[in-house]
């Protein structure tokens, strides 16, 4: 049974439709990634799951039931715009949040999480004295104590350094291994690719992708060539059959037009420059994201006309 089941949900704010006839099902025990450009409806969907805002139409089932209030000891929610009581000391704050949700003493769990995320030495400091990254880790701990069955994290990695991000990523995976279902939103496609079992993309309020990374990539086929050549992108201009070049620095991704033969592309490249590597691959999530959310040809044309 899906932990979260959304059916035909629509939500509008005044004249803007934030979520439009959205349906999805989040499998139990999975990490479910929400991706989409800013303002596409990710946070609105998450807030509706938590029941902070209500849909105009459609239904939300969480653990098989329609929810009536916001409170639940099964759900941990880390909003995108988040804050904690800055005047409180770290340990008191976490005990307050944990006890509020569980109704029991959570000192042992607080100590364990502080130790695990490298904050034990700051346990008696006021939150206002912590760095932004440390504060985010405190907010994460406040969300996961006591361990919920459904964890909803809106942009949990924003602003974190790689070490802190890794520690949060490790914690998320460990929680999944203990049966917790995790829904998270992110702008980092690499995070979504490496962390999420299923990926859901919302664009202009509508679902445009939903499935595993493999199934999503398969839908686009192997239309991408990843090359490494001398002269890099300068050597790739006006290649026949190539629609778009995505310059990743050391490596370039070439998107082939329908009917384009990769062997002919290779021959053309060899004739132009020295080819170091050449492989035909499925498109990356980043590329898929840009294909969907990037400027459409007509939009790009109108933008250039306006200039």
């Amino acid at each position, binding site marked *: 049974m899906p932990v979260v089941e959304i059916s035909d949900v629509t939500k509008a704010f005044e004249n803007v439709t934030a979520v439009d006839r959205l349906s999805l099902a989040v499998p139990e025990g999975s990490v479910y990634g929400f991706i989409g450009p800013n303002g596409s409806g990710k946070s609105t969907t998450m807030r509706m799951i938590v029941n902070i805002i209500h849909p105009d139409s459609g239904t939300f089932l969480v653990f098989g039931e329609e929810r009536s*209030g916001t*409170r639940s*000891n099964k759900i941990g*929610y880390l*909003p995108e715009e988040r804050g904690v009581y800055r005047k*409180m000391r770290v340990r008191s704050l976490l005990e307050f949040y944990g006890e*509020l*949700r569980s*109704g029991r003493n959570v000192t042992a769990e607080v100590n364990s999480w502080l130790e695990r995320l490298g904050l034990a030495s700051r346990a008696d400091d006021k939150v206002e004295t912590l760095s932004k990254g440390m504060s985010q880790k405190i907010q994460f701990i406040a969300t996961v104590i006591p361990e919920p069955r459904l964890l909803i994290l809106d942009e949990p990695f924003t602003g974190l350094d790689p070490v802190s991000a890794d520690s949060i990523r490790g914690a998320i995976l460990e929680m999944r291994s203990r049966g917790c279902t995790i829904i998270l939103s992110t702008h980092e496609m690499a995070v979504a690719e490496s962390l999420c079992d299923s990926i859901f993309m919302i664009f202009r309020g509508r679902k445009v992708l939903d499935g595993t990374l493999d199934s999503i990539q398969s839908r686009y086929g192997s239309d991408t060539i990843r090359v490494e050549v001398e002269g890099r992108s300068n050597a790739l201009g006006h290649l026949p059959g190539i629609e778009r070049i995505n310059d990743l620095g050391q490596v370039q991704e070439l998107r082939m037009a329908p009917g384009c033969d990769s062997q002919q592309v290779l021959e053309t490249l060899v004739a132009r420059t020295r080819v170091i590597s050449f492989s035909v691959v499925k498109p990356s999530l980043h590329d898929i994201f840009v294909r969907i959310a990037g400027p459409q040809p007509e939009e790009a044309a109108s933008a250039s006309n306006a200039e």
Partner: protein
Amino acid sequence: MPNRILLIARRDYLQTVQSKAFLLGLVLLPLLFGSGFFALALANKMDTKAQRIAVLDGTGIAAAAVIQACQEATQKAIRETPAALAFAPHYVFEEVKPEADQAAQLLSLSDQIRRGEIFALVDIAPGALHPSGDTSQPDVRYYANSSGLVDPLSLWLPAAVNDGLRHVRLVQLGLDQERVADVMRDDRVVSMNLVGKSPSGAIAGGEKRSLQSGFVAFFLVFLLFVIGTFGSASNLSAVAQDKMQRVFEMLLTSASPFELMAGKVLAAVGACLTSSTLYILAGLAALAGMAMIGLAPLHLIPWFFVYLIADVVLLSALAVALGSACANPQDAQQLAFVLILPLYVPMFLLTPVMQHPNGPLALVTSFIPPFTPVLMLLRQASAAGVPAWQPWLGLLGVVAYGLAVAWAAARVFRIGILSQGKTLKLTDLAQWVLRD
């Protein structure tokens, strides 16, 4: 009561009572309240220099009698002023003989007043003992350098000068000193409490009305107003700040909006009870230390706490709701003004209610729920008291009104805490109250 409400209340209570603002306010309130009296007492202690008042006697025979009457009046004023309020300069009256050039003499004496060499001048006209009936010209002129708005002499000096002049007239009629003294005898008039029936049916009361006990009761009313108002109003900015720091959204999976609001209101009640209990215990200890514990209005203290709790619940719920509707610090400042301003209405009514505690104005206004705590307690503190049913009916009104306000506040709060970046309109608040 759900444990979550108590947890939220405990957190907010501890944060409040441990804050610098609370601790500073705890010290500053009695300092501010007492500073006026300290200043008066200090001025009295420092005012050891006698104030000289010249008596320019145009009649040539009235100076001694006038001076004696004025000195007796001075002593009486000092005698009848409570020690705690004593502010009576020591006046010394001196006769000045009229000179030929009256205008020059008046100018000279006025200059002495300006230089502070003498405090005032009483100028008795030559015909003052037997006035002609021409009321256009005063018989006695009083010159002083004061503004005239606050001049303690003006309270008793005219009567004293007249007593002196009447004394001379009686002597001129041939009465001996003993009979003159009998005619001029000043009978004491003492304010008494009304006589009533005790619960056993016996006629009781009629004791001397004590200014000090009235003052202590007024202090209780003042304490209720200050603690109730400022203890509750601080919730507005605290909630607005929490909202702007995005604290609430993280809490909403752990507690419902109603539980959050109830916890905050309960914390405000706790903080106000803490400070008021400290003040009342300190006040009782001070009275006991001065052997004046009899002045303590012990019968009012339970009502004080009942009204305080009702007042704080009512005002805190409003403050929390308004705080949740703020989008920025400017909103919080403006709404704090909107919240606090009506609370000052009872303070403007203090004087008429104290003068006529059972008059129509006092009766009606003390049953208007937002004003009931302060005005009903003030009426109860008056010597006349109020019928026993009135405080209970007033309390019933406050509770009913408080429940209605808390209901509306909870409905505003549940939406307000999640409404970010939107400039507040009063119509929004009304819609939030009515929205399902």
